[in-house]
Every structure is written in structure tokens, then in C-alpha cells.
């Protein structure tokens, strides 16, 4: 029943030339199955965000093969991208921000308006549609961004440190909520993060990236059933996975 949604082979990315030449990614080969939540974990500047941008079809690799749902990646409805900053437009209400993808993709209006309301309720912001982003806290703004990326009902969510700028307590609860929503809606999630804890908490598999050049140092399976509870982090198995991840990170230094 598993189906490979994302497939890359020997992907590398080089920026600049001559003395300024920087190898951001080298020999990245991986496969991600439908319905999986995977994390790309690594220190800042290890190229994991670059890799995500390539998967989103906004950047071409220097070499290697990338297949997303069987085709060369390009921006399309089936793939949603979310950033560390909410990037909500301050001149639009919360509901209008959530509806932005529908306007651009020319999706049916009435249907989308109802869907936006449902999604705001899903992320815990029912009734906030008419407010402006400046009236919301950072955590609430990221929830709106999550509703926005979900609006066109993509199969794949590419998340670039989506809760990285938030305080730890808000991040933990949003992580679990994200995992819950992904499971509920059957999304495949690729989460870029630099938090070992976050990676182990939400994902089925953790890809540990090395820095300069960015390579995959190792893959850690996290076979705990979903949905997970915060208390799962206290178990010996959880600690075991965290230390496996840390070992890969240390060997990569």
C-alpha cells in the first residue's frame, strides 16, 4: 500500500563559482512514502532549506534526479510550502490571507470560503477570520499560515522550520497539532528543523544532515504509533531515539 511520493537520487547543489564556490548539497538520495512525516534535521546552514526549496520546484539542483509525485518538481496545487515566518499580508484579514491560494489558483469561491472557515476551526482559530494579522500572537499567526497552506488541499506539505521562531511551549503544542492534522487529512509532511526533540516527537523518520557540504549522515526510524502524546517524550524508547539522532550528528561534525 505504500507509495513513494518523493524520490531523489544524487542531488547536489552548488552556489557560486571559483573561490566563492559553495557546495550546499551533495549526493542526497532519499525516498519518502505517502502519508509519512519525515524530518530533515541539521545545524543552520546545512542545506536542508535549500533541499526543501528544490522539492518545492523553486530551485533547480545542480545535478541529480528529483521526482515529486513522479514528475520534475514545479510549483503546483499538490505541494504546499510553509516558512518560519508566517508571511501573512497585513492588509488582508485572517480569512483573506487563508484564501490567498484560492485567488491565485482560481479555485471555486464559495466552496473555498467555507473551507477556509473549516480550516480556521481546525487550527483552533474559529471566529478570528475578520481580524487582522497584527491582532494575533506569533503562534496564532503560524496557525493561520498552516490553514493557508492547507486550503488548496495539497498532498505534500513542505515545512521550513514552521514553528522555529516560537517559544518552546507554543512550539510543542503546535508540533503535536500539526501531526494530528497531517494524520487526519492524510498529508505527507517534510519538516525541516534544527530541534532534535521536535524531529523525534513528530516524525516517522528523521534524516540527519551534515554541514558543508550537506549530506545525509543517517536515518533514524521512530516507530511509535501516532497520534502521540507529550508524555511519549518521557519514555526510554524516546530517549533512545534521541541519542541515536545525536550520535549521527556528532559523527557528522
Amino acid at each position: 500500500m505504500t507509495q513513494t511520493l518523493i524520490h531523489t537520487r544524487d542531488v547536489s547543489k552548488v552556489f557560486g563559482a571559483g573561490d566563492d564556490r559553495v557546495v550546499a548539497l551533495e549526493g542526497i538520495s532519499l525516498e519518502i512514502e505517502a502519508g509519512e512525516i519525515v524530518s530533515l534535521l541539521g545545524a543552520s546552514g546545512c542545506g536542508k532549506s535549500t533541499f526543501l526549496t528544490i522539492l518545492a520546484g523553486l530551485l533547480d539542483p545542480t545535478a541529480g534526479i528529483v521526482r515529486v509525485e513522479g514528475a520534475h518538481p514545479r510549483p503546483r496545487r499538490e505541494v504546499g510550502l510553509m516558512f518560519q515566518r508566517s508571511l501573512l499580508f497585513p492588509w488582508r484579514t485572517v480569512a483573506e490571507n487563508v484564501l490567498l491560494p484560492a485567488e491565485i489558483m482560481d479555485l471555486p469561491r464559495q466552496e473555498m470560503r467555507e473551507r477556509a472557515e473549516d480550516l480556521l476551526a481546525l487550527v483552533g482559530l474559529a471566529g478570528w477570520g475578520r481580524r487582522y494579522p497584527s491582532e494575533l500572537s506569533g503562534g496564532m499567526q503560524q496557525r493561520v499560515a498552516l490553514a493557508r497552506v492547507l486550503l488548496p488541499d495539497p498532498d505534500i506539505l513542505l515545512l521550513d522550520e514552521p514553528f522555529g521562531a516560537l517559544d518552546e511551549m507554543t512550539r510543542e503544542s503546535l508540533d503535536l497539532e500539526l501531526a494530528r492534522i497531517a494524520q487526519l487529512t492524510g498529508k505527507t509532511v517534510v519538516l525541516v528543523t534544527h530541534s532534535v526533540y521536535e524531529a523525534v516527537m513528530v516524525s516517522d523518520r528523521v534524516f540527519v544532515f551534515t554541514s558543508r557540504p550537506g549530506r545525509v549522515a543517517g536515518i533514524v526510524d521512530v516507530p511509535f504509533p501516532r497520534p502521540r502524546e507529550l508524555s511519549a517524550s518521557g519514555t526510554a524508547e524516546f530517549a533512545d531515539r534521541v541519542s541515536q539522532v545525536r550520535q549521527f550528528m556528532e559523527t557528522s561534525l
Partner: protein
Amino acid sequence: MSTEMIDRDTGTELESTSIRRWVRWRGPIGALVLFALILGVWTYAVESGAVHRVILPPPGEVLEAFIATLGEGFFYGHLWVTLQEVLLGFAIGVILGFSLGALLGTSALTREISLPYIVAFQGLPKIVLAPVFITAFGFGMTSKVMMAVAISFFPLLINTMSGLMTVDPEAIKLMQSLTASKRDILLKLSVMHALPSIFAGVKTSLTLALVGAIVGEFVGARSGLGFLLAAYSYQLKVGRVWAITIILALIGILLYVAIEYAERKLVFWSSKREAQVAM
């Protein structure tokens, strides 16, 4: 707690209603006191002979001249001429400045080609163009409109261009990931992002359009408030000169307030606005 007023200077809570009332009214009261003070110094300076009456008449005389001016029919003819010049010049200047700014802000090639000329034009005191325009377009309204355009389009060009160029690259990435076309990105993101900056340019342009029209009238005209002011000045009707000056200031303030109102409605999300509210 929330009903308590906080003194902005000291951060202390104010409990007594009389102190609260004072905090609310101290600004307007202070402004009135300052106005009275200025009138006092003005009167004293003239009556004591420190400033000659031909340069600055006493306040009463200016007030008289002001009322007399408003009572004369021909004044409104001149006012109408100047208003037309300013508004037409401003409108053309805004359209021109915005269009050129949009072109330069979105196309790096056009920007690179025209940058030396932009810098050169920016350095030029546009007032020197007045004699040329009078020669080219005559003593009528056209030369003044051209003058207002020449002097007012530039700030808008610069502000539109820089506003469009400071769009968050990550927001562009977001739009691209949503399959947005270049047109989508320009209309739904860039122009909206640039709007606060564009409005700041519009405000500067408006003030400058007034300057352009008046300077044009100084240099060569048969009507308009600038012409009237120059004529009174030659006739040494100093009270009238000051009356016209005050009227020009009032026109400037009125137009500025109108733009400010439009800005508050259209760019409601901009935080820059808050800094400008204290007028």
C-alpha cells in the same frame, strides 16, 4: 486596571480625574499659549521698531488685509487659477511618477540604464526650469502645470521604485509556491507592500506641486496667487502679501489633510502612520 490612564512620560498610573483631564488637554492648551506668545512677540517686535513695518506689519493689519482679500471678487479668480494648476500638475505628476517608478522598480534593466539620469535629475534644483517652461509654454496655465509636474513627480518615482524593490524575497517565494504569475505577485504583493511608501511620496509631491505652480507664477504669469503675491509685493502692500502667504499655507494644509485622510483609509495597516498622527 485598563481604565486607568498611564502617563507616557513617567509610566505612573494617574488616579485623580483632575490630573487625567490635565493630561488630555495640556497639548491643545499649550499650543494656544504658544500661539498667543508668538502674537505677543510679533506685536512687540513691530511696535518697538525692531522689525520694520514694511517687512512685517502688526498682526491686526495682516488680519485686516486677510479679511479684505477674502471680500474681493478678483481674488477668487486668482485662487481658482492656482488651484487648477496645482491639482492638474499634481495629478499628472502622480500618474507619471507612479508609472515610471513602477517600471524602474520592476525591471532591473530599465533601472540600470536610467540610473545616471535619475541621479542627475535628482540633483538638479527643478526651479531653474521655470524660465525654460515659460518660454516654451507661455504665460498661461500650461507652463505652471508643467512646472508643478516637473517638481512633484520625482519623489513619487523614487518612493514607488524603492517600495517595490523592498518586497520580502521570502514572500515572493511563497507567492511562487502558490503558482502565482508575475502579474499576481505585482498586484497582490508588491504594489500593496509599496503602498505606505507610495503614500509618503504622494504627500511630498503634493507640497511640491504647490511650490512648482507658485514659482512658475512668480517667474511669469498674468494670474494666480503667486502672481497676486508678487504684484502686492511690488506695490509694498505688505499686509496683503502676508494675507496671501497665509492663504497659501492654508491651501497646503488643507490638501495635506485630505491626502492624510485618504492614507488612513487606504493604508490602514501601516505602522508608519502612527508616527505621523501627532500633527
